[in-house]
């Protein structure tokens, strides 16, 4: 393989990994606060369709992204209200949100299927993009990829170095203790779920405005689910999420690469690579229960009712 091809593969891996990165970072924060949101796929689809509609209507991709983020946030608020306020089961509500989002997005987007728009153009960052090899891979992307870098590094700092990160961990580990020392548990969880929604919206926007600048029903193709696996894969660490997202991205373009190299493997088999990788990673991680328990937010999926304190 010549180095040009490798550069192209890695460039594509980052591009493919970016929506995963967005949505997994959102889910990470959500899970760190102790809330398991299985509605990622639905929020992402709604983000994708609303983002596309807004961009299609206004002609501005930037407005599309904003609309998608807002929509993701709205979807997550439905989830938060049901789960945090009314104490509904998180798993069931999350699944319902996904089904709801899948159906609604298909309905809303039925009029624009197959239409195309002008998405974001790549911006080569001066100087940095001239670095041989790395420059091409990292610094000739579009603005959304750059903002995913920025968000990752911001989260690295916030989660590991600030009091906000400490509070988040505390709420996710033991909400009753957190409440007892005066942390507003429900508020922290609301904000975390909303952050998850905004990120899911961005991931959706990336799909419909950059990755394939058009709307197709169910176009996220299970990325919301892969993101859930990715959070476990990354053992709830921000840095590993980035690494994992690009690895998964790489896995999902492998079939194109191998076809290019002339290997005669069924494209269908190759297309399932990322899903197989997900299963394998889940098995490896769950095999070591010892570790899994130390890493996972301990109250994950358990509702917290402040009134039960008394």
């Amino acid at each position, binding site marked *: 393989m010549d180095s040009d091809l490798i550069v192209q593969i890695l460039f594509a891996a980052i591009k493919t990994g970016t929506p995963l990165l967005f949505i997994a970072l959102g889910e990470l924060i959500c899970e760190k606060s102790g809330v398991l949101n299985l509605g990622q796929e639905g929020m992402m689809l709604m983000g994708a369709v609303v983002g596309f509609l807004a961009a299609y209507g206004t002609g501005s991709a930037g407005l599309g992204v904003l609309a998608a983020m807002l929509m993701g946030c709205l979807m997550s608020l439905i989830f938060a209200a049901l789960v945090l306020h009314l104490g509904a089961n998180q798993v069931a509500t999350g699944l319902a949100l996904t089904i709801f989002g899948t159906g609604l997005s298909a309905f809303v987007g039925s009029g624009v299927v197959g239409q195309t728009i002008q998405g974001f153009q790549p911006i080569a960052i001066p100087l940095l993009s001239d670095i041989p090899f790395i420059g091409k891979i990292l610094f000739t992307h579009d603005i959304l990829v750059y903002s995913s870098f920025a968000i990752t590094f911001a989260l690295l700092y916030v989660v590991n170095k600030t*009091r906000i990160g*400490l509070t988040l961990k*505390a709420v996710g580990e033991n909400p009753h*203790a*957190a409440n*007892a*020392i005066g942390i507003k548990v429900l508020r922290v969880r609301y904000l975390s779920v909303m952050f998850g929604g905004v990120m899911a919206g961005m991931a959706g926007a990336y799909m419909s405005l950059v990755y394939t600048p058009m709307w197709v029903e169910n176009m996220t193709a299970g990325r919301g689910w892969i993101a859930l696996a990715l959070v476990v894969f990354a053992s709830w660490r921000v840095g590993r999420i980035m690494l994992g997202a690009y690895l998964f991205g790489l896995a999902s373009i492998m079939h194109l690469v191998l076809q290019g190299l002339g290997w005669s493997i069924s494209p269908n088999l190759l297309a399932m690579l990322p899903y197989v990788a997900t299963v394998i990673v889940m098995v490896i991680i769950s095999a070591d229960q010892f570790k899994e*328990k*130390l890493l996972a937010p301990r109250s994950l999926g358990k509702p917290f009712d402040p009134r039960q304190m*008394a």
Partner: protein
Amino acid sequence: MKRSNLVSRLELVSITKQYPGCLANDDISISLMPGEIHALLGENGAGKSTLVKTIYGVVSPDKGDIIWDGREVSIKSPSIARDLGIGMVFQHFSLFETLTVSQNIELCLSKTQLNAIGNLAERIVQLSKEYGLNVNPDRYVHSLSIGERQRVEIMRCLVQSVKLLILDEPTSVLTPQEVAGLFDVLRTLSKEGCSILFISHKLHEVTEICHKATILRGGRVVETCVPQEETPASIAKMMVGDLAEQDAGYAKKIGTKSLFNVNCLSLPAKQPFGTSLKDISFELKSGEILGVAGVAGNGQDELMAIISGEDERDVKNSLTLEDKAIGHLHAGDRRKLGMAYVPEERLGRGAVPDMSLTENTLLTHSDGFIKKGLVDWPSIQKYTETLIAKYKVKCHGEFSEAKSLSGGNLQKFIMGREIGQNPKVLICAHPTWGVDVGAALAIHQALLALRDQGAAILLISEDIDELFLLADRMAAVCDGHLSPVVKTESTNIDQIGQWMAGTFINSNNDFKGAKS
């Protein structure tokens, strides 16, 4: 009071709190002077917890005033309480295990407090020296013992220069030596003018350290006294009111034939924070109670799980019942052979919270109540009602959900259910933990009656007094090791306390200690 010229640190005036179906606090008035160590006593459900939560801002009272340093205040949240200088050490610690000590403490401090302190880690080390707390700011909480965790909680209050420290049953999880250490800290704090509100079930501790005591019963103040002028028995009487008989000494028995044996049981921990069992051997004889002392988290839970069969790993020959290996059997099969259990965790292990008492009875008592595969509901209901009556379980009836009962009442029920199967061997963990004086007495007598019928009882408890009261022979666990087993008469609290701290490990098991 000798300091009557000063303003009270805290005064509660007619605090009233009504919960649905229960008047938790009824017109309670208490006052604390600076430097006073004040005991809050009462049976379970007397309203102690509600009252301290009111002071700490977790519960808001329906009526009544709180006066702090002579000024009326309204404490709406724990952070307001902390700003005033009120600190609380919870019974179930409110620490975060995946964070370090200093991160845990940092979470409780406001920005201004943090700025005033400067370097938090240094401040912790300095305070640690000053009060002899021995707290290392960089350790992760999950690596700390229970005693150390409690010191972290106290440190959390000290860092905020606390003026009133509330401790909810602080000694129930400590070794006698650790209790002495805690009392030294409390006395120092008291001398510096910090008031202390101390909730405890252990009356001799109250008479030892407290200046004043308020006794609650049914949500009302029934008595205030100076504990030094009373005896534990006279205080107990005030708490219970119509206490007819007190736990006195019971006759010790010598077991007859060997019933249940644990032979050289070693087992690695299953849970990340668990304890590995290390070469445990003991014999349980018919007609005796073997008491196992130990601070929580030293292998008691693991031992209980492997004996009951909840831990499904095969330890075939390490467990024998009447010379038959049972270590490979399923939990249900072990029960059929005559084993019974009263686990520490009442809701979730001892009983299913959402099921009725009848259904909970059926879970361990299937024999005779199931005919041709169908449940004979009338007879199981009747049987449950006799259990409720016999053990004086306070509930609405056999249909009550297990979770609706108070801890002590549920414990009486579980105890009755297990004893009702006439077990050959009863394994019983912390039977009276958090149970009030009256219920504890009933449980003690039930255990002794079972022993006298010839059952073998393994009693795992953190309450040393209880063990000395009931056990015929005694041992202690520390870090998964079991100490030598001795007759209760031939030992004393001091020796058991040292065993709980692990002194036997090096002297007896040098080579094993080195291995682990």
